[in-house]
């Protein structure tokens, strides 16, 4: 029953909140949709912590896409052996995880010790920070405990399970043999998905990718409706 809840019900609840929450927030809280930068209050620690964390987390994200979303057979087809994959995963993943972790520690410390930042922190900031800390800590420790290439293989367990959830054919059986650290990591991750829309983390979706391909000069068109209104001529 618990398994059913943890690996079927919880993910769907969490993902529903994640998607629905973002739609709701975007619709009704345009002004609140922000990264809530505190750079104006403190710069030095932020520059270090934020850069470490963000670059780290970016590579961690890529690693997760590689490990979880892309099925193992794809790699086999491409001729990437088990060992090569692991080498890439560890050489890329551990430094990325460490960077993100160190960055996060600096940011947490900053949020607690810098008076002005602490005074302007809201509850949602603390919640986001807490989940990030748990997720990164458990993720990093699972990876480190799993350095041995003969150990647990998430590509045959967590990966297929996650894809089964995404394709609406949830199969909790995949998760039965997963070590406890990985389990906590996964549950915490779903936790963070659930609070995501209500925190500053929404800024992930405002990453200005558009800049990469827009023209130098941008004209904004009047709203079509306004344009239709008869223009008063003086």
């Amino acid at each position, binding site marked *: 029953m618990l398994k059913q809840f943890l690996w079927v019900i919880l993910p769907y609840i969490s993902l529903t909140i994640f998607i629905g929450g973002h*739609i709701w927030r975007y619709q009704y809280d*345009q002004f609140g949709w922000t990264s809530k930068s505190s750079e104006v209050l403190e710069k030095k620690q932020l520059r270090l912590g934020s850069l470490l964390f963000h670059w780290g987390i970016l590579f961690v994200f890529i690693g997760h896409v590689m490990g979880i979303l892309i099925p193992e057979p794809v790699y086999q087809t491409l001729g990437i052996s088990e060992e090569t994959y692991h080498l890439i995963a560890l050489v890329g993943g551990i430094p990325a995880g460490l960077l993100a972790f160190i960055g996060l520690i600096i940011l947490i410390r900053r949020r607690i010790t810098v008076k002005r930042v602490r005074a302007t922190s809201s509850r949602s900031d603390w919640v986001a920070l807490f989940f990030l800390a748990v997720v990164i800590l458990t993720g990093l420790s699972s990876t480190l405990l799993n350095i041995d290439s003969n150990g647990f293989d998430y590509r045959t367990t967590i990966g297929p399970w996650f894809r089964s959830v995404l394709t609406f054919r949830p199969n909790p059986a995949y998760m039965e043999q997963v070590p406890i650290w990985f389990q906590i990591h996964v549950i915490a991750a779903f936790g963070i998905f659930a609070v995501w829309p209500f925190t500053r983390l929404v800024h992930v979706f405002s990453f200005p990718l558009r800049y990469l391909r827009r023209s*130098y000069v*941008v004209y*904004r*068109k009047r709203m079509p409706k306004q344009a239709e209104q008869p223009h008063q001529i003086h």
Partner: protein
Amino acid sequence: MKRKRSPLLNRFKYIKPIERYANDHSEMTYGDRDWENVYRRRWQHDKVVRSTHGVNCTGSCSWNIFVKDGIVTWEGQQIDYPSTGPDMPDFEPRGCPRGASFSWYIYSPLRVKYPYVRGVLMDMWREALKEHKNPLDAWKSIVENPEKAKQYKQARGKGGFVRVSWDEALTLVATSLLYTVIKYGPDRNVGFSPIPAMSMVSHAAGSRFMQLIGGPMLSFYDWYADLPPASPQIWGDQTDVPESSDWYNSGYIITWGSNVPLTRTPDAHFLAEARYRGAKVVSVSPDYAESTKFADDWLSVKQGTDGALAMAMGHVILKEYYVDQQIPYFQQYAKTYTDFPFVVTLKKDGDKWVAGRFLQAKDLGRNVTNAEWKPIVYDDSTNSFVIPNGTIGSRWDGQGKWNLHMVDEETEQPIEPRLSFLGIENELITIHIPYFSDEGSKTIERVVPAKKVQTADGETYVTTVYDLVLANYGIDRGIGGNVARTYDDLVPFTPAWQEAITGVKRELVIKIAREFAQNAIDTNGRSMIIVGAGINHWFNSDTIYRAVLNLVLFVGAQGVNGGGWAHYVGQEKLRPAEGWQIIMTARDWTAPPKLQNGTSFFYFATDQWRYEETPVDELVSPLVKKARYSHYADYNVLAARLGWLPSYPTFNKNGIDLYKEAIANGATTPEQIGNYVAEQLKTKQLQFAIEDPDNEVNFPRNLIVWRANLISSSGKGHEYFLKHLLGTTHGLLNDDKDSLRPQEIKWRDKAPEGKLDLLVNLDFRMAGTALYSDVVLPAATWYEKHDLSSTDMHPFIHPFNPAISAPWEARSDWDIFKSLAKAVSDVAKQIGMKPVKEVVATPLMHDTAQELAQPFGKVLDWSKGECEPIPGKTMPNIHVVERDYTLIYEKMIALGPNVAKQPMGIKGIAWSAKDEYEKLKKTLGTIKGASVAAGCPDISAAKNVAEAILTLSSTTNGKVAVKAWEALEKKTDLSLADLAKEREEECFTFEQITAQPKTVITSPAFSGSEKGGRRYSPFTTNVERLIPWRTLTGRQSFYLDHELMHEFGEAMATFKPMLQHRPFSKKRPDAKGKEIILNYLTPHNKWSIHSMYFDALPMLTLFRGGPTVWINKDDAEEAGIRDNDWIECFNRNGVVVARAVVSHRLPRGMAFMHHAQDRHINVPGTKLTNNRGGTHNSPTRIHVKPTHMIGGYAQLSYGFNYYGPTGNQRDLYVIIRKLEEVDWLED
């Protein structure tokens, strides 16, 4: 309304193909643009309201206040001032960026939103109320318990405020007020609120309340050192100056110590426009001031030595335009409008001849009324001494012939007054004239032609004021004496002599003096001097001013459009004067009001008098062996005793008890009570409170401050305030162990600390005064109330209107004092208080017959047995006033019946306001029900008060103006009513001035004319209509013959050096590294709204965001200070910490700390006091000048804000050094 588009759907517009142009260089997007509305809405509004800023900047600019959704969004300049007429630039638009930033303040974190009381006091009060049934007993258990009192007084300025309800706060204040009334006397409750013109209803609110409860109101114009005592001395007028548009009529303008673009920003355009019209502008300023950029010539004078420069210019003008050649225009002007032809006695002092006093009709045995007050001129047509028309004696002799017609008062025959006795002299007499310099004082021997006359006291020699003035200026008339043969002689007061003192080249001085006079000749007097605080805030500002003002009198420029002086220091011109006076003095119910001169009050209340070090003897004339007293405070005791100055708290007894005592001793009529008080004083059974100011029965107990920032902005001697008045932590580095000891005052070795029981502040900003107050009441801002505004700079009157209702729990000043009146009445009822009678003393007032109290300017002290104490003659007037404290509220909200019953008036003339009173009953409605005020006009709302003021005043009601002119016609036998006749039908209403500002009606309350759209210039009615000045001679005065003026060597204009107050006289904090000693000046700030609101964010962003001190780059280098370094400036009075602004704009030797840089913004600590650096007033203290205390003598008689010692603070030096360590004291 358009339905709001879903922002999410908008995002999917991505999918649409993007139109690109210009080789993909540009593109068209269809993204959501709703966010733009935020910016668009910022400037939208749904209401526009006319209001203004009540800020003593003198601008009095009318503004549009824009409101959206009940929030003030912004303000904009009004552009609908009535036109100045053809061929003139207009006033509109007026306003500066400071005013335009005010709406920020309404919603700022600095806003006081609720009533606050300091927690420690509130706890005690609530506890005490539980224990005592009677609130007075509860209050007594706190204030009379030294430990408890100390506990809450020491907490002042240290935060700890708790929010309380209005009722609770008001009951606390009311209880303390009534406790003081009963225990110590009503005159121990004191009110302070400055500059009524900047919001007259708000000022009148508290003042009316104070007068109803018998508490004195403090004056401010003198306390701020904005009052130029030279004005009452010369003209018998507080201050009367041209509106700024009259600059345009000038041909030659000198800006002298006045930084027009910076401090008169909305008016500065007239200076530029005057230049376009062809006027030459000269700047006299030590620093490269903003006004200097208007100038064709710049006289960079050493600060404080302006008197020397002016004397030298006077020397040139007298020599070239009076002696070498005679200019008919100047001669005629001098004879008619100045005291030049008046005759002065010469007396022998040992073997020296010295100038004496005016020869009076009495001396010649003339049998006329007020013969002691009718000075004499020599008539050339009859070759005899005659009494000319217009002297002060004729003002009060009931003949109704007080005018400047050049006729003999006795025979009514035309006369030709003679300027000089040269040519008809009986003898040439060498007189001794006092001379002052940094090297000490000495006498100069100069020769005057004298005539012999037979007087009641025997034969004596006399000369004319003109002859004396020429001698004083050192003009060579070919009759010998130590005079200047050329301008290059180093003899006072030549251009060469001044060069060493002022640093200004003699050639430049000669050139400017000639040009100034020549322009006056060419234009019949259109030469103007704009004077300002730069030369007015000195100890000897009156001698500086007299030397400068003599220039405009010499060239016949005063009383001429485009000419004369233009003193702009403080928004002192309250146009609708009579109506406002009635409301503010509560004379409609009770009289006389208690009006106290502020400087004397604070001098004693803050115990600055205990720290005097320079004996008066060092400052007096070399012709006087020793000063009358060595201590300044003794002169103030003399002034109180002789009825010269008011003195509240008055006696060392409660006035209510004194009344009972007098009755018990058989006195019944007010006259008998007066005699009883005189007798008691004479036998020393009764004392003036001022003779023992450190006795607890003489302390001021409650001080209510509103519309002012006393503690930090205007409180000169800041640290003395903190130590003695408030009894809290202070940074005073001075002690009184070996200071001067007074003769007339009881010295108590232990100085009191914490004299005040309650400091109450009404304000909308949590600034200096509020932070040190015990009770803070949230006041409405300028956009939240009804009120009136006027100024000297323009002739319009215009309103304040509420753009929004007062937010949070704020109330308008009128409403706060109304509720306080209610609270007092309620507590009085609760404790069953019966009506009481009180003995009240008032000084001998200017513009009443009492200015003839003490003839010949001779000081007779009854306490020394030199005369008898006679109330209203040789001592203050004694009155009996009845007060019913249960009826304060009823009287507060109704315009009392005395308006109709008693004559109404101003400046010594009176008329009946019966018609206006009846009219007000109809327009305002009356008080209903059974009340002492039943049937009286209802003034419970501020708007009604404003209407009453407009209806009762001669400048705003044509009928009243005509009545006032007719009253003056009766006194002068002149035809004057035509000045107002054309506007007789006009009666301003609040609605009218809300629709558009209105130009005031010409009235005898002021000395200029607006008739036919004429631009206002002072004394034009004196010159054109021959109305006498309100002085001894009835003319403009060069000569002041009071004994005390002689004592200080100031009978005539002269040069006096600034006081030499070194930073420390004895032990000083150890020197650490480099430092420099500079003259410490506190001029007005460019980046704050006048003296307030330095803490407004929009202002802080304009310049360095915190306190600064400007110093010269070479001075800075000498002290090892670089720009923006933190520095400490200190002397015995205290320490201020700020950042250095290092600039070549300032000359060496001086430091500018701009006025009122609030201490709650960015002030780090200093090791000197182990506290946060102080305010700009920390290194200052005041220096009172005894000649400002003279009274009972013609124009040298007391008037509220008219005469009295100034709170000057410029003659001071500070040590400046780099701050060792910047400690923000945050841990």
